[in-house]
C-alpha cells in the first residue's frame, strides 16, 4: 500500500481488542480512556464523523459536572484539558418559584464551604469537553477509534463477542459495551428489554449572556410547568435548562429570539440584569427508561443505554460517569487477578454495584419532579415546609449536598480521583 495511514487503519480493523465500545458520545470516550489507562486495549465505534464531534462553535450546551465526576475526569487525564474553561459552581440556590408571583420566601441554599471538599461541581461546555476527549483518545495507543461506522450485527457466545460494521469489517473482543444511548442497539441486539415512561414534558436548553455577574451561583426554580435551572458558565454567561409541557415547549422553541426571551425573562426575574441569547436553542423530550438488566452474555450497558434519567438535577452524565468508574474498576480488578473480563460473575459485580443505585436515583428524581411540577396548594405548602426543614438543619443540608456533588454511596476509585 502506498498510503501508510491506510495501512495502519486496515491493520487496526483486523485486530482483536479486549473491549469493544459502541457509541462515541461522551460516555464511550470516557470509558475508553479509563480502560486504556488501566491496561486494556479498546475500540470505540462511532456512527458519526469525527468532525461532528469536534466542531468548535459555542452551541449553548453545557454539563453540570458533580465534584466526583470532575475527579474522574482528572484521574483519566482529561480535566487539565478543560479546566481553564470550567466554571466552578460555588453555591446552589433552590427556590420554589411561581410564575408571575415571584419566588416563595422559602429556599434552600447550598454553599460549598459546608462540604469542605471544593466547589459543588463545575459547568463545562460541550464544545470544550468533546474535543478534549477526542484529543486524549488520539494520544492513546491502546484506543482505536472507528468513525462513521454503524454496527449492523453482533454475536456473543461464552468465549467472546463480535460485531459486524456496515462496511463488512468484523471486530472481536472479550466484552462489548453499549454506550449508545436510550435507544441502545447493543441492548436491543442482546435481547435486553427496557421499562420506562414519558413525562409529557420537554426540556428547553439555551445559553444567555447577562449584564450582572452570577458569582458562581447555580439556581434551580421549581415551577408548576416544570423546573428551571440557571447554571453559571465562564464570564457573564449562564446555561438555562427549563421544562414545559411538550406542546408548549415546541411552541416556545419556534418563537423568534426576542419573543423566546420574553417568555424566559419573567421566569427568573431580573437579578442578572438584562439577558441575551448566545448560541443555539435545543429541546430534549423528557422520559425515563431503565434497562431490565445492565448486562447480558459478553455485554454491559453504560449511561443512557442502561438508564435514561430525567435531567432535572443534571444527574444523567454524572450517573453515566459513575457507571464508567464502577465498570472500569470491576474489569481492571478482574484482569489483574487473571479472570476473563467477560465472564458472567465479573459482569454481575458491575450490575450489582450500579443497578440499585441507579434505580434509587431514577425513582427519587421522578418523585422530586412530580412533587415540584404541581400547583396544588397543599403540595406547594408541603414542599415549602420541607425545604425550610432541609435548609435549617445543617446535617440534613450537608447530606443533600454530598448527594448532589456525587460524594455519597460506595464510590468507585476513579470518582475519588484515585487511579485503579
Amino acid at each position, binding site marked *: 500500500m502506498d498510503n501508510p495511514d491506510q495501512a495502519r487503519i486496515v491493520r487496526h480493523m483486523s485486530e482483536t481488542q479486549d473491549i469493544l465500545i459502541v457509541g462515541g458520545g461522551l460516555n464511550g470516550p470516557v470509558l475508553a480512556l479509563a480502560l486504556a489507562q488501566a*491496561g486494556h486495549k479498546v475500540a470505540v465505534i462511532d456512527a458519526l464523523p469525527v468532525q461532528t464531534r469536534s466542531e468548535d462553535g459555542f452551541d449553548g450546551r453545557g454539563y453540570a459536572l458533580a465534584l466526583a465526576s470532575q475527579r474522574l475526569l482528572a484521574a483519566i487525564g482529561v480535566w487539565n484539558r478543560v479546566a481553564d474553561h470550567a466554571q466552578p459552581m460555588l453555591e446552589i440556590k433552590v427556590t420554589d418559584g411561581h410564575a408571575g408571583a415571584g419566588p416563595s420566601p422559602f429556599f434552600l441554599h447550598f454553599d460549598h464551604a459546608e462540604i469542605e471538599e471544593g466547589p459543588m461541581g463545575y459547568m463545562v461546555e460541550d464544545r470544550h469537553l468533546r474535543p478534549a476527549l477526542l484529543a486524549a483518545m488520539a494520544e492513546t495507543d491502546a484506543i482505536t477509534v472507528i468513525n462513521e461506522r454503524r454496527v449492523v450485527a453482533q454475536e456473543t457466545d*461464552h468465549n467472546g463477542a463480535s460485531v459486524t460494521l456496515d462496511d463488512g469489517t468484523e471486530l472481536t473482543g472479550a466484552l462489548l459495551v453499549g454506550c449508545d444511548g436510550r435507544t441502545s442497539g447493543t441492548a436491543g441486539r442482546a435481547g435486553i428489554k427496557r421499562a420506562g415512561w414519558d413525562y409529557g414534558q420537554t426540556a428547553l436548553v439555551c445559553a444567555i449572556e447577562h449584564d450582572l455577574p452570577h458569582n458562581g451561583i447555580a439556581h434551580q426554580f421549581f415551577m408548576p410547568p416544570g423546573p428551571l435551572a440557571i447554571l453559571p458558565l465562564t464570564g457573564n454567561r449562564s446555561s438555562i435548562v427549563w421544562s414545559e409541557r411538550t406542546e408548549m415547549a415546541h411552541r416556545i422553541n419556534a418563537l423568534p429570539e426576542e419573543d423566546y426571551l420574553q417568555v424566559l425573562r419573567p421566569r427568573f426575574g431580573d437579578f442578572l440584569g438584562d439577558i441575551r441569547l448566545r448560541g443555539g436553542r435545543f429541546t430534549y423530550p423528557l422520559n425515563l427508561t431503565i434497562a431490565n438488566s445492565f448486562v447480558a452474555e459478553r455485554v454491559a450497558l453504560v449511561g443512557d443505554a442502561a438508564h435514561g434519567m430525567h435531567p432535572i438535577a443534571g444527574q444523567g452524565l454524572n450517573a453515566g460517569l459513575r457507571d464508567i468508574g464502577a465498570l472500569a474498576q470491576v474489569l481492571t480488578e478482574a484482569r*489483574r*487477578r*487473571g479472570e*476473563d473480563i467477560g*465472564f458472567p*460473575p465479573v459482569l454481575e459485580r458491575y450490575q450489582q454495584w450500579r443497578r440499585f443505585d441507579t434505580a434509587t436515583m431514577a425513582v427519587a428524581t421522578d418523585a422530586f419532579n412530580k412533587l415540584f411540577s404541581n400547583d396544588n396548594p397543599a403540595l406547594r405548602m408541603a414542599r415549602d415546609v420541607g425545604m425550610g426543614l432541609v435548609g435549617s438543619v445543617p446535617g440534613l443540608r450537608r447530606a443533600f449536598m454530598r448527594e448532589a456533588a456525587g460524594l455519597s454511596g460506595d464510590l468507585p476509585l476513579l470518582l475519588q480521583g484515585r487511579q485503579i
Partner: protein
Amino acid sequence: MQVYQSTVDPAEIAKFEAMAAEWWDPAGKFKPLHMLNPCRLDYITGQIAAEFDRDLTDSTPFAGLRLLDIGCGGGLLSEPMARLGADVVGADAAEGNIPVAQVHAEQAGLSIDYRHTTAEALADAGEQFDVVLNMEVVEHVADPLSYLTATQRLLRPGGLQICSTLNRNPKSYAMAIFGAEVVMRWLPRGTHEWSKFITPGELFDLLRQAGLDPVDRKGFVFNPLLWSWSVSASDLSVNYVTASVKPG
C-alpha cells in the same frame, strides 16, 4: 473442531465440551468454587507479585515464571495464571479432568500443559517450578507429610508454594460438612472427611518438616450477608491459606 490434538477421539470432544461447560458454569455444580475464586486469586496473585517482585498492573506480570497447579480440575486457577503470563502445568489425578480442561483452555485461546499425573510423579521426573499452587488438596491425601515433601521437591530454591485447606474444629465441621455438603448441597456428600482437616499450626509444622519456610497465613471468610468471600488476616477458623518459600 480439528484444532484439537489428533490423540483425542473426536467422538469424545462433545462430551468434554459439555463437561467443560459444567466446570465453568458459575451457577452450576462448581458454584462454590467460582464464588471463592476471586478471593483465592487475590491472595495468590498478591503473594506471587510480592515474592518475585512483579507489578500486577503490567499486562503479563507473571511472564517467565513456571507454575504448577496441583488438582487443576477444569482449570479455574490454571487459566487465570496463564492469562497473567505464567508458563502453566496443570496436574490432576482424575484422568477425566485433563481433556475437559484442555478443551476449555483452547476455547479461551490459552496455552496450558495439562497432564494426568501426581505431585510425586512430577517430582520423581525432576520437574522444577517457581510456583506451586496446592489448593484444597492436602485434606484429601493419605499421607500429608510425604505429599508436602513431594511439592517441596518440585520447587526451585527461592520458589513459592501456596497451600490452602480446611481447619479442624467444631465450626469447620458445621460449615464445611454440615453447611456446604448437607444443607447447601454445594458439594457432594462425602467430599470431605473431617478427621483429615488440618489446623494452621499443624500445617505450618508439616510444611517445615517438608523443608519449606512458611511466611504467611490468612483466612478465607464467607460473609452470608454480602454472599461473598474475602481474605481475613485474623479469621482462619474454617478455610485458610498459607504461603511458604523454599530456602535457597
